[in-house]
Structure formats: structure tokens, C-alpha cells
């Protein structure tokens, strides 16, 4: 008979782990119900692990592309206070505050139409005598002291079709192109791609429009920003001191919030899973009341019954958690494959941690949910259980 071969093929009860094998057989008895109970854990663990990793990856990608923004401070006049330009006193304060902590580059900014050999285009204008700390050349060289000629951003150069040695015209003045600027990576206070950098004399001499400070470190930047804020904004908010580290902090806070929210979602689904395991365990122990009574009657100790039932709950958690964790890892790699996310931000210890923690939560939730039903069933007096 077919059935016989199937039964012959099944493993003998391993006497070394009676609780585990009894538990496994009990779970196999009602596969659909066990699967559904474990499915809750699968979803919960999957949600926590995936959302946790997802949050990490988002945060890491964001901080990666924001790069070394954290060391930059930008000082600009506050038009709301009627201040249009920075005064030379401001500049003195700034250079005093930055001394030993970084370099300050005063800038004129404007917009203008730039004319090339064949076409014209709108571009941002920056005016500085000291372009080296802020800009990087792709072709040509950036002079240490900028007195003549123009540095052209990569997009402007492409649009106008000019290269090093070519000529561009801004506001009726012709400038020789000294360098084409390197494309910017990430975000920075000056965006060079769509800009033309000119000597200071090209701008009206009524004062600088901003000062970009490149500090040695994040702390130095915070320090400089705080000093300038107190020195320059004594009575009125004359200047705006913008510290990019602040944005980073805010972005960090945002992602922490997002992470918390996502993890909360996952936790709720685990909670629901826990309730479903609780329910399933209550039902299945109630159904097996007589059997459990017999176990006790034939001499199985209460603690062994308890252990068997807890192993049942734990197995649901282990299997559900493992499946959830594997699904989550697969999903994360699918995400990596399908989006421009870099492998480096996927393969970090924190992500493995998120998956492990989610798995651990799954097992713990199952165990906790099984605790009461198992205890209740194991503690019932066998005489009562057998009376049915």
C-alpha cells in the first residue's frame, strides 16, 4: 500500500530531542493552521527586517551623497533685515573667526547671459579672487589669484561649445576661458556646473553677496557658525549664517523618524502575528486537551509538556522568522539590483543587525505568545483534562 511506504520513510522519533520531535509532529498535524500562524511571523519579521534595512540604506545613501557638506558654513546678508551685501567689517569678523579653523572665501553672486562662439545661455556668476578652495578644474588650471579670464562650469561649457583657451562674453566683456570646472558630485553650497566664475572686478564693488567657509572639521564649522552668529547679529539678524551640518542633522533626524515609523509598522505586524500564534496555540492545546491529559497520566512531567508546547511555539517563530529573514535579504538584493543603490551601503553590519534583530523578535514574540497557552495546558490537572 502506498501509505505504508510513506510511513516507513518517515523519521523515527529521536529520543534525544523528544520535545522537539513531538512538537514538530504536532505542528505537522494541522499544516495549514501552522503555516498560517507562521505566516504572521514571516510577514512581521520580513517587515521589520526589510524596513530596517531600507531605512539604513536610505540614510546611508543620503549621507554619502551629502559628503563633506558638514564642514561648510555660508554667511550671506539677510535681505529681510534690509541688508543687501556684506560689509568689510563683516569680512574682518569672518576672517578673525575662521582664523586657524578653516578658510573663508568671499563671493559675489549674480546671474547673467553668457555668450559663446555660436550660442548664448543663462548661467550663475560667481566672483572671487580666491577660487581654489571652492572649485576644481576638469581641464585647464585654476589660478591661485583670479585677476582675469573665466572659469566655466561643465554644463555651460558644453552648451556654449567652448573649451580652455576659448572666449566667452558676459555683459559686454570678453573673457578667455582658463579652465572648465569638474562636475560636482553630491550637493555643495556653490553649484559649479551651471556657473561661470569671474574675477572680482567684473562685479559692482558695493560688497560681497556671500562668504563660503570651509572649516577643518564639523566641530570647527559649528564653532565658527556660532561665533559669527553672535558677533554679526548683535541687535538685528543682519546676516544669515547657514551651517550645512545642521541640515545633515535634520536629515539624520528625519531618517531616524522614518526608521522609527517603519520599524513601528513592522512591530505592529509582529504583534498581530503574536496574537495569531497565541490564538492558534490556545486552540490547538484546547483540541488536544485529552491527549495532554494522557501524556500527564502516563507519567510525563508537567515541565516536559510545557517544554514540548513551548518548542511548538518557538518552532513557528524559528521557521517563520527564518523565512521572513531570507525573503527580506532577497528583497534587499532585488532593490540593490533594480535601483542605483550602491552595494557598499547594503553590505553593512547594521543591515545584518536589522535582519538578525527582526528574526530574534519573531522568535521571542512566538515564545511569549505560546507561554500562556502552553502553561495553561500543561498545568491542567490530568483528571480534569481526561474528563473531557
Amino acid at each position, binding site marked *: 500500500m502506498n501509505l505504508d511506504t510513506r510511513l516507513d520513510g518517515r523519521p523515527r522519533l529521536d529520543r534525544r530531542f523528544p520535545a522537539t520531535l513531538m512538537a514538530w509532529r504536532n505542528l505537522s498535524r494541522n499544516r495549514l493552521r501552522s503555516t498560517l500562524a507562521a505566516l504572521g511571523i514571516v510577514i512581521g519579521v520580513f517587515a521589520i527586517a526589510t524596513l530596517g534595512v531600507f531605512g539604513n540604506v536610505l540614510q546611508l545613501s543620503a549621507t554619502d551623497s551629502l559628503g563633506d557638506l558638514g564642514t561648510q558654513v555660508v554667511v550671506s546678508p539677510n535681505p529681510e533685515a534690509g541688508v543687501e551685501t556684506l560689509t568689510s567689517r563683516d569680512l574682518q569678523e569672518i576672517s578673525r573667526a575662521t582664523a586657524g579653523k578653516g578658510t573663508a572665501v568671499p563671493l559675489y553672486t549674480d546671474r547673467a547671459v553668457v555668450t559663446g562662439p555660436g550660442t548664448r545661455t543663462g548661467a550663475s556668476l560667481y566672483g572671487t579672487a580666491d577660487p581654489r578652495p571652492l572649485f576644481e578644474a576638469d581641464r585647464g588650471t585654476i589660478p591661485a589669484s583670479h585677476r582675469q579670464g573665466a572659469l566655466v562650469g561643465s554644463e555651460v561649457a558644453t552648451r556654449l561649445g567652448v573649451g580652455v583657451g576659448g572666449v566667452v562674453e558676459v555683459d559686454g566683456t570678453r573673457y578667455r576661458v582658463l579652465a572648465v570646472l569638474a562636475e560636482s558630485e553630491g550637493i555643495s553650497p556653490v553649484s559649479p556646473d551651471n556657473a561661470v566664475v569671474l574675477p572680482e572686478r567684473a562685479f559692482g564693488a558695493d560688497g560681497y553677496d556671500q562668504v563660503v567657509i570651509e572649516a577643518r572639521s564639523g566641530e570647527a564649522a559649528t564653532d565658527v557658525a556660532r561665533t559669527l552668529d553672535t558677533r554679526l547679529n548683535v541687535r538685528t539678524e543682519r546676516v544669515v549664517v547657514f551651517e550645512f551640518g545642521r541640515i545633515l542633522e535634520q536629515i539624520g533626524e528625519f531618517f531616524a523618524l522614518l526608521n522609527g515609523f517603519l520599524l513601528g509598522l513592522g512591530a505592529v505586524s509582529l504583534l498581530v502575528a503574536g496574537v495569531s500564534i497565541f490564538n492558534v496555540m490556545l486552540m490547538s492545546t484546547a483540541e488536544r486537551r485529552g491527549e495532554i491529559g494522557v501524556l500527564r497520566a*502516563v507519567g510525563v512531567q508537567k515541565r516536559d509538556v510545557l517544554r514540548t508546547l513551548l518548542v511548538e511555539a518557538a518552532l513557528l517563530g524559528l521557521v517563520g522568522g527564518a523565512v521572513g529573514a531570507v525573503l527580506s535579504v532577497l528583497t534587499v538584493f532585488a532593490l540593490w539590483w533594480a535601483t542605483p543603490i550602491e552595494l557598499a551601503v547594503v553590505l553593512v553590519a547594521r543591515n545584518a543587525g536589522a535582519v538578525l534583530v527582526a528574526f530574534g523578535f519573531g522568535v521571542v514574540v512566538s515564545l511569549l505568545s505560546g507561554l500562556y497557552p502552553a502553561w495553561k495546558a500543561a498545568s491542567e490537572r490530568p483528571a480534569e483534562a*481526561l474528563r473531557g
Partner: protein
Amino acid sequence: MSEAETVAADSGGERFDGPTIELRRVRKEYESGAGTVVALDDVDFGVQPGEFVAVVGPSGSGKSTLLNVLGLLDTPTSGLRLLRGRDVTSLDDEARTRARKDAIGFVFQDFFLIPSLTATENVELPTLFGDDPTATDRARDLLRRVGLGDRLDHTPNQLSGGQKQRVAIARALVNEPAVVLADEPTGNLDSDTGAQVLEEFRRICETGVSVVAVTHDPLVTEYADRTVELVDGRLGGVDDRHRSRPRPRPREADE
């Protein structure tokens, strides 16, 4: 307590001449919302080694209660309970469980086999938690003895009622108990199958094990050495006490 532990621990190696299990002036009361129910009223009861006692009585007369008290599943409200001469009246749960494992076998009307375990595994069940390397062999031997040598790895739902009850009997015997307690062992069986099961009980008695069977079934009393009657928790109406052991069915009843 410590003496009681010793009782539980020694599993019938030594011979004791008196009754295997004995109740003296045992009373069992149940507290319920409606008041106190006296399920056993000053019961004196003992079973000799190798004796088969049938307990009859109307429904609600306390038969199951008697078995539970005898089987250390329940504790008497008052009175004395002795297992092989040792006081086991008020052991704690763990010691009672151990004593059940060592000295008492149970057979129930509804068989109560674990459906996810094979016949052999069901017989092994009392030995499962603990180190017992020969248990599987003993289980298989017992199943062969009760005529189920070709059903060792079948699950309960592949067995007939009589076969299930014989698996249950093998399970009751796996730890070589001093007494087997059966609650309506033939209750779910037709009379032929019931007779086979009772034959089995007779054979058990021949090995010196006591059997107490609670029943409505007159067939059981035919196989028993002695029949006692419970009425409203009182033991009495003992008929045919110590009559010679009947042999009502020839061996052909074996399959």
C-alpha cells in the same frame, strides 16, 4: 515526603505481599458552585497482585473518581492511599507523575492515542522524556504480544478500534507497572473485539500485574476475578467475591 519519593522511585523491583494498591477509608469531595459533591464515601478497596477487579455501578456513582484516586491522578480529600504498602496519599505533582510512570498503566474508553505518532511511538510515549535505550524494543515486543506485530509503524487512524485499544494496553504495560487501571476499556468496542481486549487483560494478570476495570459492560465482569459495585460513592454489593477464576472464552478468540 522523602519516604514517598522513595516509593515513587523504586519501580517494583522488590516483592510486596499485600495489595498492589489500596485505599483505606478514602473520601473524595468535589467543591462546586452548587455545593459539595461526595464522589467517594469512606471507600476501602484493595487489589492483589495478579487480580482482575471489575468495578460496576450507575452513572455518576464515582467509578471514574475511584480510578483517578487509585491512579494518582487525583488526591483523596481524606483517608489513606497505599501503593505497594507505601503511603502515597499526598505526594506533590512531580512525585505523583513519577509514581504513575513507574507503577501505573492507564487504558481509556477513547483510547487516547496521539494521532501523529505511530503505534510503536505511542507505546513508547511514557518513556519518551528520559533516557531509556531499550524502550523502543520493549514497545515493539509488547505490540507483538498483543498481536499487532504487523502494525508497528501504523498511525492510530489506520487502526481499528480493537487494535487501538490493544496499542493503549501495550502503552500501559511499557514500564512494567504494578497495576493497570482501565476506564470503560470495552466501551467503544463491539463484543468480539471487547472479548479480545479482555483476554489481553487476563494475560496481563497472569504476569502478576493487577487490573482494575471500571465498566458498564457485563462481559467485563465475566472475565474479572471479582466485581465490586459503587453506588453513590459507596462501595458495596460485592458479588461473587473470590469465586474461582472463570475462563469464559477459549483461546480461539485470539486473532
